[in-house]
């Protein structure tokens, strides 16, 4: 699969897991210490990327309590833009909770849900136009 796919079993009930996904403070404890997020459908977020220079931004595409959190994922100033999604799922299992994580980039193009992601980017800003900035950076790389 072209995406990053992870899954983890956590020996705690889904409610104990979800509380770390359902608030900005909770997300700051594990996702990114500086994330700013408006945790409702269509709400926007921004956080520093893992490398310390890139910024990630996007919007909340889905929010199902103790079920799933889906964010559109846009890498700013990374040279090129990866319009993608971060999908986090929470499901009860006998031993507690299974948390699934799927992070895709262009893998989403043409597949179900992609249009929604694209619209989220287009709402974000014209500078986020899909593929446009991708190629600006790409030009630099290829030069």
């Amino acid at each position, binding site marked *: 699969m*072209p995406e990053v796919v*992870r899954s983890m079993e956590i020996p705690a009930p889904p409610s104990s897991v979800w509380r770390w996904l359902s608030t900005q403070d909770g997300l700051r404890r594990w996702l990114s210490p500086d994330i700013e997020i408006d945790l409702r459908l269509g709400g926007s977020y921004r956080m520093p990327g*893992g490398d310390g220079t890139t910024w990630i931004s996007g919007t909340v595409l889905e929010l199902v309590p103790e079920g799933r959190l889906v964010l559109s994922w846009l890498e700013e100033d990374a040279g090129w833009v990866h319009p993608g999604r971060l999908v986090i799922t929470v499901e009860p299992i006998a031993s507690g909770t299974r948390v699934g994580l799927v*992070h895709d980039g262009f*893998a989403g193009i043409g597949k179900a849900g992609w249009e929604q992601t694209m619209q989220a980017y287009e709402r974000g800003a014209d500078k986020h136009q899909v593929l446009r900035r991708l190629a600006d950076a790409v030009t630099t790389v290829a030069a």
Partner: protein
Amino acid sequence: MADRDAPTTTTDDLFRVLADPTRRRILDLLADHGTLTVGELAGHFPGLVSSGISKHLMALRAAGLVTATKQGRNQLYAIDADAMSQALGPWLARYEAYWTGALARLRDLAVDPPHDGTA
């Protein structure tokens, strides 16, 4: 099934192909519509003759970014999502480690919450 005989392309080639704004616009349109014929694409580029569109489509096909499937007298063009994903290899590698770490932090928090004793 769509043709998959496109030659293997290096990431640099891919980037070069994508550096052209018309080609990026074509990819945007294909992402929007799923599949389009040359004629349908040409409708979005009033300043370009169809042979110009065809040339861009050839470049995109050569790079493996789009596929063409024959339907009657027309070729239907679509984005090749797999090729796109392959170009993302280095990007994916960077996030593999990041997400492994993030999930481990989440597990620790859920199992053994700080301060306020839930669990």
